[in-house]
């Protein structure tokens, strides 16, 4: 499998940045950091071949505000439902046919949905994403479609 040097370099830079965050840029740690980042890049190439660009991390800042907003409203929503005496939940299942391919893109969508208000992914069945909803009355499908677009921008199919 031909590895793209550019993608390997990007991954190396990402791991090196992780090292700098962990060590607060300590100078005597740099040789160890370089070796660690090289080893991590090799491992990541073994596990996820660096033949195409899978993550477009430069798009992360663009979707961050909505993610934070979703986290906030998801937490508030579930806290309100849990604490109210009548506990207004209507749990149920929704199947969603996603255009995203299996593997990282679909798993990323499932993970994202599991942190957003009202939805929880439970893998796929016959290619459909199985979603557990805390309130089946809400318009789940259209909000899932919005999330799908955001993930599509971040994770290359």
């Amino acid at each position: 499998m031909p590895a793209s040097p550019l993608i390997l370099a990007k991954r190396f830079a990402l791991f090196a940045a992780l090292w700098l965050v962990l060590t607060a840029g300590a100078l005597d740690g740099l040789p160890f950091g370089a070796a660690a980042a090289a080893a991590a890049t090799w491992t990541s190439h073994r596990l996820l071949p660096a033949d195409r660009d899978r993550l477009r991390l430069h798009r992360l800042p663009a979707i961050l505000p909505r993610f934070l907003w979703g986290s906030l409203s998801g937490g508030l929503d579930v806290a309100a439902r849990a604490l109210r005496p009548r506990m207004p939940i209507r749990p149920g299942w929704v199947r969603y046919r996603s255009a995203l391919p299996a593997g990282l893109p679909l798993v990323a969508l499932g993970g994202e949905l599991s942190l957003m208000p009202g939805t929880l992914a439970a893998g796929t069945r016959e290619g459909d994403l199985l979603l557990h909803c805390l309130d089946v009355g809400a318009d789940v499908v259209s909000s899932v479609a919005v999330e799908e677009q955001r993930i599509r921008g971040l994770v290359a199919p």
Partner: protein
Amino acid sequence: MIADAVTVLLIGAGLFFFVAGTVGFVRFPDVHSRLHALTKADNLGLGLVVLGAALQAPDAATVLKLVLVWLLTLAAAATVAQLLARSALEDGAP
């Protein structure tokens, strides 16, 4: 002084969401609804605690490290929630 007050406020709010998530975990009727309570409320709770702790951090590196802790926990929560939801489904939970 103001930073200290905001820290107390943020961490207090974070703890509130941890408690709310635990209440949901106890009250909700089935495995999958309980997973909702744990993922959403704890995600927000930890985020608020991290924010509160970041205000006390001596330098930017510590803030970044705290954010890293939050991100890794989120990734773990998002993955484990899916795995548990799947395994409960296959075990025949409604």
